[in-house]
């Protein structure tokens, strides 16, 4: 796959096809093996659902993809180049982890405005983002007054103020009411139509049929493999 010439100065626009490829990925946490020999490949428009019991490594995988946790082995490729640490231009990544990264003393408006500026995105996206997650009435209130679901919605709204082709969502639906769950599904569909790639960990089975699924419960490490990993 050849890189478009303009991609050297800025990230490829979402309309350009992207590919995320993961091969032979191993994960250790605190010396304990979590999963091993994972592989998958996602193209623009794909959504990968991570499922599996508690502790099977969904969050760990997402943090590895985000570059926050070093993998024990394996390769992560974005359009054939290393996703992290290479000299090429990695995609910007929209990551929503277990924690919401909310500052209690900033209003919602200020919070989103900061992240928009930080990512060099225009400010008009803020109002859209607030609206999409029904946070407009709370825009002028400080982060500290948010209920758990409202906080989660703010964390998700940040995805809309930044232009990231790759979204990594760790249980985005936690604590959301029904309207908010619908809003998230909407945004996800929109992002896919725009050519984005999404990896999403969840225990709630609200998606059906078409998506790719990866059950991390099936990648746990057997004693044999463990020996090999440690060798």
């Amino acid at each position, binding site marked *: 796959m050849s890189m478009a010439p303009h991609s050297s100065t800025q990230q490829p626009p979402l309309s350009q096809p992207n590919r995320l490829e993961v091969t032979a990925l191993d994960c250790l946490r605190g010396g304990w093996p979590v999963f091993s020999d994972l592989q998958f490949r996602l193209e623009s428009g794909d959504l990968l659902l991570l499922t599996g019991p508690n502790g099977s490594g969904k969050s760990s995988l997402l943090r590895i993809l985000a570059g926050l946790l070093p993998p024990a082995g394996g390769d992560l490729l974005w359009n054939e180049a290393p996703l992290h640490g290479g000299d090429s231009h990695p995609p910007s990544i929209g990551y929503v982890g277990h924690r919401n990264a909310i500052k*209690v003393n900033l209003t919602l408006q200020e919070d989103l405005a900061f992240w928009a500026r930080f990512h060099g995105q225009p400010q008009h996206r803020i109002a859209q983002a607030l609206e999409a997650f029904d946070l407009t*009435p709370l825009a002028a209130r*400080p982060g*500290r*007054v948010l209920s758990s679901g409202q906080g989660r919605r703010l964390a998700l709204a940040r995805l809309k103020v930044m232009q990231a082709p790759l979204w990594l969502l760790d249980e985005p639906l936690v604590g959301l009411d029904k309207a908010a769950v619908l809003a998230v599904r909407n945004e996800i569909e929109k992002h896919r139509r725009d050519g984005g790639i999404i990896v999403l960990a969840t225990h709630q089975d609200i998606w059906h049929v078409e998506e790719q699924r990866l059950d991390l419960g099936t990648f746990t490490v057997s004693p044999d493999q463990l020996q090999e990993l440690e060798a």
Partner: protein
Amino acid sequence: MTRATSTSRPTASAGSWHRFANPGRFLRISGHVYPWSLGLALLCLGVGLVWSLGLAPADYQQGDSVRIMYVHVPAAWMALFAYSLLAAAGASLLIWRHPLGGVAATAIAPVGAAFTFLALATGSLWGKPMWGTWWVWDARLTSVLILLFLYLGHMALTHAFENAERGRKAAAVLALAGVVNLPIIKFSVDWWNTLHQPASVTRIGTPAIHEAMLWPLLVMAGGFMFFFFAVVLLRMRAALAAQRAEALDRRIMLGR
């Protein structure tokens, strides 16, 4: 069972919302008291300033620098008095849960801090000619400095929380814990050997100060006192008005 289950709101429980607003009686009474205390303050301060700075005699030792006394001594008295009131307001909030206690304490603290600062500043100005230095680490001076920090801590704590109620209560606890400092300030001159002058006006029996200085001093002290009450009442009324305005704001927001 104290109360039957009924669908209508029991009046007693609705009453508890009053904790947050509408101390109507205070507003009425203070509305009458405030102009009087302001008027008396201006009168006393006017008379007192002319008397003490112009008419009262200069000291045979200190010369005109003794005139600092007419500001310094009342300011120091007010600093102590305001702190006692602050602690009393805190106690009324904590023990009797009187909401005005919190409003009063919040109103008193900066005014008391200002008087304390004034006592420190004038004392320091006076110290230069008298002791040859702006500042000595003597027990009285230092304990007044600590008093200033108690005031500042009180103010900081009051505003350190999202929940204003919580801030007022926490500050009330602090004010009560800090009361130990009052006797230390008052009696430091007797307990420790200090540079600072022992009580001469407020001591038991006849004051050891000449009447020509005593009267203007008392008039100034009265002026400070009335001024203090005027400012505190004004601040309390403003705080209550702000609470009402906030309530209105909320209603408008919800009405959208």
